[in-house]
C-alpha cells in the first residue's frame, strides 16, 4: 500500500467524518429560515398593549418590508423613482414617531425587470432577511414569477405595482393584493372615452406582449366596437425597434392609437411616428403616460431633437389627484415630503404614486393594531377604511384583492401637465360599462401616521 494511497484514503476519511459530524450536530430547524408561520403567542390583531415582536420582520420598534424594483434595465426610466418616493413617505412617518411606535425599514432590491433575478432577490428578502411583507413589487412578468412562492410561504404580498388582474385571486393567492386600477378596468374607461368622444374613428392598438398589454386590450375591446379596430400591434421589451408596428398603424390608417406601453416604449412609439410624419390621437395607459418621465425620455432618445411638444393632446386615465393641483391637501403634503426628503428626484407621477402607495401601507399597518401578524394584516386589508389620496375607492373586501376601482380621463393639454376632465368612473372586470362614481376623496389626517 503506497503512501499516495494512504494519503488519499486519509483525506477521504477526514472529510467523511466531518460531514457525518456536521449532520449529527446540526439542529433540526435551520437558522434564519422562514416557514411562514407567525411566532406570536397572542394571536390576532391586538387592540391595546405594548408593541412586541409579533411576527417575522416585526420587532418592538421596527417593521421591515422588502420589494423588488427595476432600478436598472428597460423599465428603470420613471419606475426607479417609485421606491425612493415610498421610502421618503416612510421616513416622514418615522420622523413623526412611526406606526404604533415602530420605525418602518424599507429594503428594495434591483431585479432589472428580469423575472429570474426577481425570484432570487425575493427569496433572499424572505428567507434570509426575514422581511414582514413584500411591498409594491413592481412589474407584471417579474412579479408573476414570485406570486406562488410568496403565497406558499404565507408572506403578505401587498399592493403589487402592476395592474394585472392576476393579483386579484383571493381564493388561490390570498396573500397577494393589487393597488392601482387594473388594466381591464382602465381599458374599459379609456375605451369608453374613445367610443364616446372619438366615435367613428379608426383605432389601432400597440401593447406589451404579456399580461399587462393583453389585459389592457381586453378592457378596450369591451367598449370599442370591433369594427372600429383596424390593427393590434404587440411588442416585447427586449426589442426596441418599434418601426414595424408604427408603420403598420399608419398603413391601416389608424386615427386613434391606444398604447398599453411602459414609458420607454411610449416614447419610442411617439418618436417613430413623428419620424414618419404620423400624428394620430394617442390614448395611453396610466403606467406609460407621465409627462415629466416621457419628455425626459423623448429628449434623451432623440438626442434633444424632440421633446414634450409631442405629448400635446395625449389622453390618459388617472386615479390620483393632478400633480399641479396645489389646492389639494394631499398634493400639498406629498410635495412637501418630496421637497424635504427626495429633492433631487423630479416631482412627477412616479413620485406621487410611490408616496400614495406608501401612505396606504402606513394606514393599513395602523389599522392592523399594536401587534399585527401576517395573517391579521391580510384580514385588516379586507375590512379597514384605508382613506388615502385616491379619487376612487378600493375594491378590497373578503371577495376581492383588487385595488382602485376606476379612473378619470386626463388630457395632456400643453405637453407638460395632465388636466383631468369629465366624470370619475368606477367599474369592474366584467363586460358591463363603467358608471359614474360619487366617491369623495377624504382629507389627510392631521397626524400622518394614523
Amino acid at each position: 500500500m503506497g503512501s499516495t494511497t494512504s494519503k488519499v484514503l486519509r483525506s477521504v476519511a477526514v472529510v467523511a467524518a466531518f460531514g457525518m459530524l456536521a449532520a449529527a450536530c446540526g439542529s433540526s430547524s435551520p437558522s434564519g429560515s422562514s416557514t411562514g408561520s407567525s411566532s406570536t403567542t397572542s394571536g390576532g390583531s391586538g387592540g391595546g398593549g405594548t408593541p412586541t415582536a409579533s411576527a417575522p420582520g416585526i420587532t418592538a420598534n421596527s417593521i421591515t418590508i422588502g420589494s423588488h424594483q427595476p432600478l436598472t434595465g428597460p423599465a428603470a426610466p420613471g419606475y426607479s423613482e417609485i421606491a425612493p418616493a415610498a421610502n421618503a413617505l416612510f421616513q416622514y412617518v418615522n420622523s413623526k414617531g412611526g406606526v404604533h411606535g415602530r420605525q418602518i425599514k424599507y429594503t428594495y432590491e434591483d431585479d432589472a425587470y428580469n423575472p429570474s433575478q426577481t425570484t432570487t432577490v425575493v427569496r433572499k428578502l424572505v428567507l434570509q432577511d426575514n422581511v414582514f411583507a413584500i411591498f409594491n413589487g413592481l412589474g407584471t412578468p417579474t412579479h408573476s414569477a414570485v406570486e406562488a412562492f410568496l403565497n406558499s410561504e404565507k408572506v403578505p404580498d401587498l399592493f403589487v405595482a402592476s395592474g394585472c388582474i392576476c393579483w386579484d385571486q383571493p381564493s388561490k393567492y390570498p396573500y397577494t393584493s393589487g393597488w392601482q386600477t387594473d388594466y381591464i378596468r382602465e381599458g374599459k374607461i379609456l375605451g369608453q372615452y374613445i367610443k364616446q368622444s372619438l366615435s367613428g374613428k379608426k383605432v389601432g392598438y400597440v401593447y406589451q406582449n404579456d399580461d399587462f398589454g393583453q389585459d389592457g386590450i381586453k378592457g378596450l375591446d369591451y367598449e370599442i366596437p370591433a369594427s372600429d379596430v383596424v390593427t393590434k400591434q404587440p411588442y416585447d421589451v427586449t426589442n426596441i425597434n418599434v418601426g414595424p408596428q408604427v408603420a403598420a398603424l399608419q398603413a391601416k390608417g389608424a386615427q386613434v392609437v391606444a398604447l398599453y406601453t411602459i414609458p420607454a416604449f411610449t416614447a419610442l412609439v411617439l418618436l417613430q411616428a413623428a419620424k414618419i410624419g404620423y400624428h394620430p390621437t394617442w390614448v395611453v395607459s396610466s403606467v406609460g403616460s407621465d409627462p415629466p418621465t416621457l419628455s425626459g425620455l423623448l429628449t434623451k432618445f432623440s438626442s434633444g431633437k424632440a421633446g414634450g411638444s409631442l405629448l400635446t393632446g395625449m389622453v390618459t386615465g388617472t386615479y390620483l389627484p393632478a400633480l399641479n393641483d396645489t389646492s389639494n391637501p394631499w398634493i400639498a403634503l406629498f410635495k412637501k415630503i418630496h421637497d424635504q426628503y427626495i429633492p433631487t428626484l423630479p416631482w412627477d407621477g412616479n413620485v406621487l404614486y410611490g408616496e400614495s402607495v406608501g401612505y396606504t401601507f402606513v394606514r393599513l399597518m395602523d389599522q392592523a393594531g399594536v401587534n399585527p401578524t401576517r395573517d391579521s394584516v391580510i384580514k385588516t386589508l379586507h375590512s379597514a377604511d384605508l382613506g388615502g389620496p385616491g379619487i376612487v375607492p378600493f375594491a378590497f373586501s373578503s371577495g376581492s384583492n383588487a385595488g382602485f376601482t376606476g379612473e378619470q380621463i386626463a388630457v395632456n393639454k400643453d405637453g407638460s401637465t395632465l388636466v383631468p376632465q369629465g366624470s370619475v368612473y368606477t367599474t369592474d372586470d366584467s363586460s358591463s360599462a363603467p358608471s359614474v362614481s360619487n366617491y369623495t376623496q377624504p382629507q389627510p389626517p392631521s397626524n400622518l401616521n394614523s
Partner: protein
Amino acid sequence: MTRMPGPLRFAAVRHGLVVIVLAAAVAGYTQIAGSFADFQLAQIAIYVMAIAGLTVLTGLNGQVSLGHGALMAIGGYSAALVMQHDPNGHLPLAVVLVIATAATAVAGGIIGVAAARLRGPYLAGATLALAVGIPQLAVARQFAHTLGGEQGLTVRSPQAPSFLGSSFSLEHWLSWICAAGALVVLFLLSNLVTSRYGRTFRAVRDDEIAAALAGIHVARTQVLAFVVSAASAGLGGALLGVVTSLVAPAGFTLVLSIALLTGIVLGGLGSIVGAVWGSILVVYVPQWSTDLAHSLSFSTVMGSYFAVAFYGLVLIVVMLVFPSGLQGGIVRLWGMAASRVRRG
C-alpha cells in the same frame, strides 16, 4: 503511480467514493444552513452541471461554445412543457428530468452535426447566434402561445417526500435534488474523462490530423462531445426551471452563456473539479459584491453598478494570479507545498 489496492484501481470506484463523501458533506451542510443558503447551494449545483459539461466540450475537446445558455433553455422549457401536459403530477420528477435531458441531448446532437465543420471563431460565432436566438423563439409570434412569450411558463415545485417530515422545507429538498443531479453529472463525466473517450477527445483537440491518422473518427468524436455537454446543460436548465419555478427568455440571456464560459475559465479549463470552483465563484461573487455595496452604504442603484464592476475586478485578479484557473492554481500550490515538505 504505485499500485492501488483492489477496487481503488478502477477510476469509477475512486470517483464513486468522492461522490459519496460529497453527498455526505452536502447533507451535513444543508442540515445546518438556512433556507436561502440551501437555495444558493441549489444554484451552485445547477451551474456545476452546465459548467462541467462545457469544460469537457471546450477544455477537453477544444470546441468553444458560447451557446450553452441556449441548451439550458432547451432543457428548462422541455421540463416545463412536460409538466404542463401532466397537470395532475402523475409523472415523477425524475422522469421529467430524464425527458428534458434527452431532448437537450438530441438538440446537442443536431447542433454538433451542424457545427462539426466549424472551428475556432466560426464555431464560437455560430454558438453565439444560438445563445441569442433560441431563447427568443419563445417570444416569436408563432410560438408565444405554447411557450409563454416574454412572461414564460411556470414550473410546478416538487413536494418533499412525506417520510422526511413536514418541517423539511422546499428549499432543502430542492438543494438535495440539485446536488444529486450535480453529483451524478460529475460522476459520469469524470468517468468519461478518464476513459478511452476522454483520451479521444484530447487527441482531437491537440491535433486533428494526427488523431485521424491514428484511426479516430474526428467528426463523430466532436458530435459525441457536444451531445454529452448538451445533456448536462439540459439537466442543469431543467433544474433551474424547477428551482426558480419559472422558465422565461429573460432567464437564459447571453449573460448566462458568458457566465458559464467565465466559470470554466476561472475554475480551470478541462478540469471537472475546476467546474465546482467555477460554479461557486459565479454564484457567490455577484452576491458578495452586492452585499459589499450595501455595507459601503451605496444607494441601491449605485450598488447594482458597483456589484457588476467589482465582479469584473475579481475575475481579472483571479485570472492574473491563477492563469490556469483555480484548479490549476491549487494543483501548483499543492505541488509546491508537497515538494517543500519532502525537501524539508
